[in-house]
């Protein structure tokens, strides 16, 4: 299995001279098995270029695509209306997502293409869409992929995925805050709120479940949006630092961590510094730390013995 990064940016796409090397498009990763089966994780703006590649590969023939969504914030779904395979009649697209509020998934995803936002409503798109609700703790299988959803700490909920195929294992952990200072729920936070005893218990349970599910995973792609200084100012925004990701990966004995969901303000030069700094920090605790960039492809290693 290998994974390819089509969008590595958080929040919104960032064109310009400062993002030429790491890339400016938002969250989208493609996993491929050795036999060519494809699984897409998140539908940020990186999905447009992925879709164009998939259409070139298929020669324009209809296909079946599977898309796992971590959550439905704009930076994780905005590429969907620009995914060119969706405009090929006969194409089927299965979308898997956490139900984070009262609405049904088809209304939530359909809502992004409603008339005010996009010229073509979802029901008029030629591809046939199917929606599947995921639940942390309930594994499922998509072709050769075994998928384990993992609850994460993000405003209105988010879900990570452990993905096993070909005897190899990687995980997608975005978007998430760390599990000590703020517990994200279904309301707006203008700053960190004091934690109740129940909140601490819930955070510890989320942390423990994440570490348990990452155990033995070869490669973990993790939301490391913030530098430590930025996190200190915005602990309630729902994102982590590379230090927090390294701590989780070291605890779960993960071989390799990939920094991901870079803040829009982090230009290429700053990303170079972050990459170098955390490669060294990771080495000190036995975790190989890579920094994702648009166009990066990584072979996933075998699942480690428990």
């Amino acid at each position: 299995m290998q994974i390819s990064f089509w969008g590595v940016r958080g929040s919104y796409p960032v064109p310009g001279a400062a993002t030429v090397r790491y890339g400016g498009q938002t969250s989208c990763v493609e996993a491929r098995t050795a036999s060519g089966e494809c699984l897409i994780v998140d539908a940020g703006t990186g999905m447009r270029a992925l879709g164009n590649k998939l259409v070139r590969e298929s020669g324009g023939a209809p296909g079946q695509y599977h898309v796992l969504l971590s959550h439905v914030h704009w930076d994780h779904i905005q590429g969907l209306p620009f995914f060119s395979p969706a405009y090929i009649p006969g194409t089927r697209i299965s979308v898997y997502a956490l139900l984070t509020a009262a609405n049904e998934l088809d209304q939530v995803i359909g809502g992004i293409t409603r008339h005010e936002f996009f010229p073509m409503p979802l029901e008029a798109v030629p591809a046939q869409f199917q929606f599947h609700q995921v639940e942390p703790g309930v594994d499922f299988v998509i072709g050769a992929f075994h998928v384990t959803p993992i609850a994460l700490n993000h405003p209105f909920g988010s879900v990570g995925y452990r993905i096993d195929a070909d005897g190899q294992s990687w995980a997608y952990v975005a978007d998430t805050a760390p599990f000590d200072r703020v517990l994200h729920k279904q309301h707006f936070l203008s700053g960190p709120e004091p934690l109740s005893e129940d909140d601490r218990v819930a955070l510890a349970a989320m942390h423990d479940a994440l570490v348990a599910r990452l155990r033995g995973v070869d490669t973990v792609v993790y939301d490391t949006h913030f530098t430590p200084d930025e996190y200190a100012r915005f602990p309630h925004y729902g994102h982590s630092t590379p230090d927090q990701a390294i701590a989780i990966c070291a605890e779960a004995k993960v071989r390799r961590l990939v920094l991901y969901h870079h803040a829009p303000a982090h230009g290429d030069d700053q990303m170079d510094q972050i990459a170098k700094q955390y490669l060294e920090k990771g080495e000190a605790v036995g975790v190989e730390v890579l920094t994702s960039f648009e166009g990066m492809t990584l072979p996933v290693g075998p699942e480690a013995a428990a």
Partner: protein
Amino acid sequence: MKIRFWGVRGSFAMSGREFLRYGGNTTSVELKTDAGQRLLIDLGTGATELAKHLMAAEFGKGQGSLPILLTHTHLDHIQGLPFFTPFFIKGNEIRIMGADPISGLSLEATLQNQLDPHYSPLNGLENLAAGVTISSFVPGGTIAVPGFVVTTARVPHGSMWTTAFRIVADGKVVAFLSDVEYPSIDEPLPEAIELAKDADLLVHDAMHADKDYELRRGWGHSPARAGVVVAERAGAKRLALFHHSPDATDEMIDEVVGRTAASTKVSVFAAAEGAYLDV
């Protein structure tokens, strides 16, 4: 009056080397009077760059005031809204004006949907710390904001409408016609010609190279030639090609500009992210 293009790209923000000279941000255009009053058109990703400049001055202190006109609410024209940092500073006064979408929702309800908790952790317009007022207008009238007088008109955009603007300040005129497709390229609507009458600068939708247009007729966007016809009929002095296709690299835009400029006596250039230009 000066104009600065913060985002010139249509549909989709494009990063990468092929888009550096014209810029990959989606639409956002600032107009500034000689006295320093500002008017912003659209809140595409380009607005996030303008936001950095505004925050370095009075908007960072909660003392800024900004009127914003929206052509319409397709995502490429509003996707910078949740990241436009002056909204997060108490004391700033920001007024968003636009037509109601034809779906029946009001402009305010539409922007509220953009910040719906599913889609944005901001969880609603009420959580923006700045004073934000959203007012709908019916195109066809005139709006006065400090330093500017704006005439509005409804123009066709595929199966819907967008709002075009004629902006007068300091005795100069900018006509802004983005996201528009006329039933016939050679016969632009009289409203469009009226709006651009004797304009010092016409900013016009040029999403498609002329050679690509036939395949994309009906999608709601113009070929470069449409702006030329409007400029010639209206007697506009300069034409800025705008709302470049996400597939158009810098070299492709250069070619469109060269071909378009050779076809008319109107002075033609392609809108690019960058410096303030004198109107």
